[in-house]
């Protein structure tokens, strides 16, 4: 379906970028906003993230696509940047809890949005 561009890559590289940690707390559609500009000493990935999110929010999954890095790797990078105050995150607020339906107000908003397409 899509390009298997990560497949040839060495998992050790991801280990290096992330220090071997895993993190699933940031939703795919959490929206990231840069709080500062790139600074000397930042990694190239951090610089790219800050540039992408400088002028408008960008979802975690879009950062993953633009950086050509797996979602879990991007999540870990973002967690560190969040802890350091370099970014802020707008977490999804309308997502239903497991086994629950989305609330009616959310469904109404989605319906109106789709009808306006």
């Amino acid at each position, binding site marked *: 379906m899509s390009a298997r561009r*990560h497949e040839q890559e060495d998992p050790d590289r991801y280990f290096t970028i992330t220090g071997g940690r*895993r993190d699933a707390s940031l*939703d795919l559609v959490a929206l990231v906003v840069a709080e500062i500009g790139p600074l000397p000493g930042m990694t190239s990935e951090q610089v790219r993230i800050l540039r992408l999110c400088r002028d408008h929010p*960008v979802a975690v999954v*879009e950062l993953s*696509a633009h950086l050509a890095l797996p979602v879990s790797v991007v999540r870990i990078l973002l967690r560190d940047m969040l802890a350091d105050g370099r970014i802020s995150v707008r977490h999804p607020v309308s997502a239903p809890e497991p086994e629950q339906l989305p609330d009616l107000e959310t469904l109404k908003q989605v319906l109106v949005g789709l009808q306006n397409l």
Partner: protein
Amino acid sequence: MDSRISDPPAAATPLRGTAADGLKIVIVGGFGVGKTTMVGSVSEIRPLSTEEVMTRAGVGIDEPGAVPGKTTTTVAFDFGRITLNDRQVLYLFGAPGQQRFWFLWDQLFGGSLGAVVLVDTRRIEESWYAIDRLEHHGMPFVVAVNRFAERGPSLPKVRAALDLDERVPLVECDARLRESSKTVLIELVRYLTALHHRPAGEDER
């Protein structure tokens, strides 16, 4: 099929500065059924693709040619988005329904509003597993038959072949057409709304 990788950031169509609430709908179906086509027909950006890495031991066993002992494998998926209003943006994900993908469902698609199962009537059996897994995950869904040029079995026959509960909406679509794909998404939202009003004890989604 689609090897256009993330070139210029969505810079061409950035999110609004006020965007604050991301929503998800997942389109599930076998390879070549038209998931990316459907995403692309309604998305405000050209579909992007990315991947997730799985490192759980043993999950790659269904993968042809998997290296014995290899504990890392990747699954790819496509996505697009629709800005709903100043605050909310709906992301549409095209997810292959194969076995290994479901190990990542909660991690990637937990919190989705619902799902669309996209069916190719020439390979209807590919949808059985997806429907079973969605039910297992408690994720409500509608089923859309992607009608390519040729004629196929009638909807009642498709429903029977899928052993689909009569209450689950089953619709036809042409995933290439924006209006048609939009109608499928609206069908899902209406169904989710209707589920709210289903009497207690009848909720078997």
